[in-house]
């Protein structure tokens, strides 16, 4: 095990560092998470929408979701270029690239002029389904500004006054970015949005397979156990998983089958009880079963956040990070629970979710009930208990180690 940790710190860590410190990666991560309050609002509206099934007289609030969650792609299109330029330390007005990216993104959704002469944009393309397109638009716009910043078209001794120079510094990148969009969308008539979706389809589809989904959740848990926040990978999984849920909802509304088994809804309900790695059971074991004072103390200190699926304190307090005895069951839990998600839906124990709900901080049993009903509650209790069984032998070993040391010190 120590050989593995050595290999990780010498070989894997530097590579991981390169990815996680990459400014493009962190720009995407921050832009997506910056929109979270609106996404959570959309999730709440979705949950309220479920009330309609029970109380038909309950009003239809779905439009509130349309103008919050439903504009996810649009928001990220605006935020991404300025984030990239901030991290690349390009000294330029941040608003102009953002606005340009908005314009470019809208162009790439292939608006058409209808019979009444109105320019029509497909609203559905502005939401989570549009994230890949909006990120490409944002990156492209940022690249243009970066390249332009490097070329230094005008000399400092130029005869032109400052404000004219500034004007051109912004005007030229705007012209380039929008002209490219114009040519592709309107002159050549490509549906760039659909092309981009097609490009990412293999990735999307592979994450809907059991091995793909298991690999994805395993990687998130692996890196987390090595001290890297789940936010890094989640930023890239969000477009994929949200896209899957949107597709499920669309299919269901048309009377078709919802076929995407992996998205945030099943993961948050059944594989995130106490955060990534299923740590609620472990925390409770610390409080009620631990013989060592240390684990007992950490359990008591960190149980409150654990109930809300926040396990960072537990991970660093125990510690679980870089601690082989507790890392292994954490990985096992991610693999096992993801697999259970697959079979539970294939065997029909729980339906494929047709609710968009990213409220990861809601206690998991409640969440499972809200999204999946009674069977969901049962299944989440089931995976919770199973995670405890998986943790138990490793917990016992570690607890005994610590308790023995504590007793030795006493003597």
């Amino acid at each position, binding site marked *: 095990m120590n050989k593995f940790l050595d290999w990780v710190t010498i070989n894997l860590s530097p590579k991981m560092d390169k990815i996680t410190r990459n400014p493009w990666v962190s720009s995407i991560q921050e832009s997506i998470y*910056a929109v979270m309050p609106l996404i959570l609002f959309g999730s709440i509206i979705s949950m309220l929408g479920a009330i309609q099934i029970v109380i038909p007289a309950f009003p239809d609030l779905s439009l509130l979701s349309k103008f919050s969650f439903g504009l996810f792609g649009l928001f990220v299109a605006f935020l991404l270029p300025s984030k990239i330029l901030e991290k690349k330390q390009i000294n330029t007005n941040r608003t102009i690239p953002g606005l340009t990216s908005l314009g470019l993104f809208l162009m790439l959704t292939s608006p058409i002029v209808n019979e009444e002469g109105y320019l029509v944009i497909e609203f559905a393309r502005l939401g989570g389904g549009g994230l890949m397109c909006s990120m490409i638009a944002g990156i492209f716009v940022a690249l243009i500004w970066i390249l332009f910043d490097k070329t230094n078209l005008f000399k400092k001794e130029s005869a032109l006054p400052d404000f004219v120079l500034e004007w051109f510094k912004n005007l030229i990148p705007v012209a380039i970015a929008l002209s490219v969009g114009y040519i592709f969308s309107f002159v050549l008539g490509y549906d760039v949005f659909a092309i981009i979706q097609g490009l990412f389809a293999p990735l999307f589809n592979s994450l809907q397979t059991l091995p793909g989904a298991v690999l994805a959740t395993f990687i998130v848990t692996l890196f987390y156990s090595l001290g890297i926040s*789940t936010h890094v990978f989640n930023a890239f999984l969000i477009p994929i998983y949200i896209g899957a849920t949107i597709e499920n909802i669309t299919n269901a509304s048309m009377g078709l089958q919802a076929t995407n088994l992996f998205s945030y809804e099943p993961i948050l309900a059944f594989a995130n009880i106490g955060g990534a790695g299923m740590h609620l059971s472990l925390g409770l074991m610390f409080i009620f079963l631990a013989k060592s004072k240390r684990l007992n*103390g950490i359990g008591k200190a960190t149980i409150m956040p654990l109930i809300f699926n*926040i396990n*960072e304190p537990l991970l660093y307090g125990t*510690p679980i*990070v870089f601690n082989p005895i507790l890392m292994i069951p954490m990985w096992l839990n991610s693999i096992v629970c993801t697999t259970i998600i697959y079979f539970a839906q294939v065997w029909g124990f729980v339906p494929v979710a047709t609710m968009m709900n990213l409220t990861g901080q809601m206690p998991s049993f409640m969440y499972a009930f809200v999204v999946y009903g009674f069977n969901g509650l049962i299944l989440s209790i089931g995976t919770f208990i199973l995670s405890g069984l998986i943790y138990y032998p490793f917990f016992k070993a570690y607890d005994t180690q610590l308790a023995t040391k504590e007793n030795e010190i006493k003597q």
Partner: protein
Amino acid sequence: MIKVLLVCGGGASTGFVAKNMRTAATKINQEIDIIARPISSLEELLDSVDVVLIAPHFKFRASEIEQECNAKGKKAALANPEAYGMMDGDGLLSQVLFMMEDNNE
């Protein structure tokens, strides 16, 4: 009054920790203002705070954040992982006060 910014991914885990730090500050009558925010808010909040503590699971961003903070004359450091793990408000408060002490030399 010292103004502290705790950053992590979504501001969730730091929220709990911030609460304990405020309790610790009240205990010793230390005037301190502590906010926990997502890392994406760093740029807009940096001017209005004195010290930035980075949650341990964002260690990979620590050197970049420290650079950004120092460039604006603000102190920044990775929160002590053990103290963070135990949600030890006293420990993290001590870390902040120690960081601010360097300032006054």
